[in-house]
C-alpha cells in the first residue's frame, strides 16, 4: 500500500465514522428556542403567555445538555479544533444574541418574559457554536473509534 493509499483509507474513515447525534440534538434544541421566540414575538407589544415558550425553552435546554454530555464522552476527537471554532463562534453568536436581547429590552419587555427571552438567547448562543464546532471537529478527528 502506498502512502497516498494509506492516507486515502484514513480519510475515507473520517467520512464514514459514526458519531453520536450531537449536531442533530443541538439543531432540534435550536428549533425549540426559535419556535419559542416566534411565539413570544408574535405577542409583542402585549405580554405573551409563558407556558408553551417556557416548556420549549426547557426542552431546548435539556437537548443541549444531552449534546454536551454526549460530547464529553467522545474519545479520539479533535478537541483542540473544536474549542478554537467554538470560542470564535461563541463570540459571534453572543453578539447576535445580545443584539436581539437589546431589541426586546428596548421594546419594554420586563420581568418573567424578559428572563425567558434571556434563557432562550443563552441556549441559542450556545447551540450554534456547538453545531459549528462539532461539524468542523468531526471531520478533523483522528481516524480511530469515535466513542
Amino acid at each position, binding site marked *: 500500500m502506498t502512502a497516498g493509499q494509506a492516507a486515502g483509507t484514513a480519510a475515507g474513515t473520517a*467520512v464514514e465514522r459514526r458519531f453520536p447525534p450531537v449536531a442533530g440534538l443541538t439543531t432540534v434544541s435550536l*428549533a425549540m428556542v426559535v419556535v419559542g421566540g416566534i411565539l413570544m414575538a408574535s405577542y409583542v407589544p402585549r405580554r405573551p403567555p409563558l407556558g408553551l415558550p417556557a416548556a420549549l425553552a426547557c426542552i431546548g435546554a435539556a437537548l443541549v445538555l444531552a449534546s454536551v454530555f454526549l460530547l464529553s464522552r467522545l474519545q479520539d476527537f479533535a478537541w483542540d479544533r473544536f474549542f478554537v471554532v467554538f470560542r470564535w463562534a461563541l463570540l459571534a453568536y453572543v453578539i447576535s444574541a445580545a443584539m*436581539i436581547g437589546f431589541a426586546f429590552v428596548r421594546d419594554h419587555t420586563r420581568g418573567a418574559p424578559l428572563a425567558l427571552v434571556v434563557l432562550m438567547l443563552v441556549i441559542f448562543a450556545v447551540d450554534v457554536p456547538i453545531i459549528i464546532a462539532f461539524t468542523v471537529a468531526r471531520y478533523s478527528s483522528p481516524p480511530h473509534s469515535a466513542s
Partner: protein
Amino acid sequence: MSDTRHLQAGPAGAGPAPARPRVQVVPVRGLPVVAAVVVFVVVSIAGNWLWALTFCHVVGGALWTAIDLFVGLIIGPILGRLPVPARTEFAARFMPKMVLLMPTLVLMTLAAGFQLALLEGNLAPSSPNHAWLVVSYCVVGVMAVIALGILEPANIAVLVEMRKARPDGEIIARLMRRFVLTAGITGVMQVATLIIMTRVATQ
C-alpha cells in the same frame, strides 16, 4: 476523472500543481464593516430612527433575498455539476465572503424589521399586517434553523478542511452537497418572504 480525494496531490511527472488559494475562514478585513453595520443598526433601534430602520430592513432584506435566490437557484445547481477540484477553487474564494456577509445581512434585516414593524403599528393585533408578520416569523424561523443548523456549519467545515495541507475532496464534496441543497431550500423559502413582504407593504 482525476483523484479528488487529496486535492493537493497531482499525478507524478505532471509538473508542479497550481498553488491552492490561501483560505481564510473569516476575512478579517471585513470585520470593521460588520462592526459598523451592527453599530448602525443598534443606533437606529435605540433612536427609533425611521429612515435608518427602513434603510437597514429594505437594503438588508433585498440583498439577503437576492443572494439566497441567486446562490440557491442559480449558483447552487451549477456548482453541483462541477468537478470537485473546480468546486473547491470556487468555494475557497466564495465561502469566506458568505461567512461574514450572510449573518450580517440577516441580523440587519431582522432586527431593523422587527423594530420597524413595532414603530409602524404592524405588530398590533388589530393591524391587518399582524397575521402576515407572524407567518413571516415562521418562514424566517425555518430558514434560521436550516441556515444555522446545517448550512453555516457545512460552510465553515469546508473552509477549515481547505486550510489543511491535504484537504479531503470527499469531505468537501459531501459538505458542499449539503451547502447547495440547503441553499436551494432557503432560496425557495425566500419566494414566500417576497410574497409576504409585498403584501405587508401594500395593505
